[in-house]
């Protein structure tokens, strides 16, 4: 069923009886060409592009809980392509371009809002680094602008410029960055994939792989064995658990990242703002809540919840730049499990087991990558060659010394 304003009016006048399920709940079949493990944003996007762009059929997405229940529904909804390194920037720029046409592509309003993202600059060294980054963005075809403090204050008049511990000395803006209604991304891809014949199977947890002579031929699940020509893992924070069942150890640690939302407020923040010196970033949702976050808690965790010190640290950062926030209230906090990789960059690759593919290591940046990750993974699955923007995301790059380390902190996942 096509969604449109006309359809909304028609349904409203006829009691909304015509709306069907946004996607079917499929029961598992004995065999598929492709089984994608993980009904999050990336898994659903992979299925969608595999069916639509690469004309594949016989695809299932299996999800242990409910689709969209992982990080795609737990993030701070930011999209951007302000990366520094050549291994990353083309990929994230490709992703941003896919975001720009996503709603029309999916016929689903995911509220892609290019409100702009701004990284504040506090020192000369930081400015040098941001100029290098901004130039790298432009050289890769993305947009970037260096803003003066005055330009920033014009947009954020309540910014603390006069009494700050770390004075604001400008900022690097990407105007095409912004926010997206995160849950709607999962639902939109699910609906799109469903319309292209993909089976979405909820409450179906993988319990093992069938691997014979180095070839993966299917997965054992809580709903029985499902055979597949190609099995594609796409489970973010659970990557080590799932791939562990195939005997693999990964260059990944799982860490908890907390996120926060305030009570609803009338429009305050026009765009996304990032205060690196204080571990704080914030935007305002269409509903009016300030959505914000900071650093990961810093210890391995699968608990989907964090602790108070980081909550305080994040709010300190917020108050440092926006001293009017003191009288806004934090409404809700939650945690997501991040697949923190050893260089802070993701992996989209085949494994040493034929027919078994891996997508993971997104750290806390997976949401913005959703469309490109799905597209590139679908490309890899369909053609067995990496997508041109994802050629660096290889599993063997650590052994070979080809790390893509944006932050320059090395093999220490909790620092990325």
């Amino acid at each position, binding site marked *: 069923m096509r969604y449109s304003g006309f359809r909304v009016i028609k349904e409203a006048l006829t009691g909304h009886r015509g709306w069907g399920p946004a996607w079917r709940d499929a029961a598992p079949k004995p065999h598929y060409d492709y089984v994608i493990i993980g009904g999050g944003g990336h898994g659903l996007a992979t299925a969608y592009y595999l069916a639509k762009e690469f004309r594949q059929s016989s695809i299932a997405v299996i999800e242990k809980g409910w689709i969209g229940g992982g990080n795609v529904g737990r993030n701070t909804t930011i999209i951007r392509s302000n990366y520094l390194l050549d291994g990353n920037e083309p990929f994230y720029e490709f992703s941003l371009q896919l975001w720009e046409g996503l709603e029309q592509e999916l016929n689903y309003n995911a509220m892609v809002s290019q409100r702009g993202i701004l990284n504040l600059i506090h020192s000369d060294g930081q400015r040098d680094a941001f100029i290098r980054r901004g130039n790298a963005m432009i050289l890769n075809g993305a947009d970037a602008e260096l803003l003066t403090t005055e330009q920033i204050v014009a947009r954020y008049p309540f910014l603390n410029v006069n009494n700050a511990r770390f004075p604001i000395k400008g900022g690097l803006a990407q105007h095409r960055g912004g926010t997206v209604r995160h849950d709607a991304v999962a639902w939109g891809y699910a609906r799109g994939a469903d319309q292209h014949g993909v089976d979405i199977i909820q409450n179906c947890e993988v319990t093992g792989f069938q691997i014979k002579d180095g070839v993966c031929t299917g997965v054992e699940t809580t709903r029985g064995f499902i055979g597949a020509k190609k099995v594609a893992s796409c489970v973010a924070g659970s990557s080590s*658990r799932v791939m562990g069942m195939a005997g693999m*150890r990964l260059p990944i640690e799982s860490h908890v990242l907390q996120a926060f939302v305030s009570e609803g407020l009338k429009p305050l923040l026009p765009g996304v703002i990032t205060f690196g010196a204080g571990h704080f970033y914030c935007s305002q949702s269409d509903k009016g809540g300030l959505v914000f976050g900071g650093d990961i808690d810093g210890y*391995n965790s699968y608990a989907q919840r964090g*602790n108070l010190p980081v909550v305080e640290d994040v709010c300190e950062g917020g108050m440092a730049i926006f001293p009017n926030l003191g009288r806004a209230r934090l409404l809700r906090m939650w945690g997501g499990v991040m697949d923190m990789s050893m260089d802070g960059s993701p992996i989209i690759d085949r494994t040493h087991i034929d027919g078994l593919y891996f997508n993971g290591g997104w750290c806390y940046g997976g949401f913005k990558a959703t469309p490109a990750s799905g597209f590139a993974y679908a490309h890899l699955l369909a053609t067995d060659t990496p997508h041109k923007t994802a050629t660096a995301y290889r599993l063997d790059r*650590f052994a070979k010394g080809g790390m893509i380390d944006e932050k320059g902190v090395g093999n*220490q996942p909790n620092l990325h």
Partner: protein
Amino acid sequence: MIINHPILGPRDAAEFVYKGDASLINRPDPQSDNAAERFYEYGYLRDNPAGLHRELWFHEQGDRSWLVVTRDTTTHEITKVELARDVARAEGRSR
């Protein structure tokens, strides 16, 4: 979180800095035949268990001991805390 330091007793985890899996104690022998591969595995591959995890914490705002903490990554419950140096010796890192 509270870490029960073997020398100093219970201390808030905020006093500590986290490093990662305690397997980082087992630095490979650089003279071994497959040293390159072993260093790669040592440097980059992790068990990353959902459950008991032995991990390194540094008491930076304290006595500067490195500790090996055994903690459940699904509940955060801590069941054992040892001095990393004792662990290193027990694992044969003495000369």
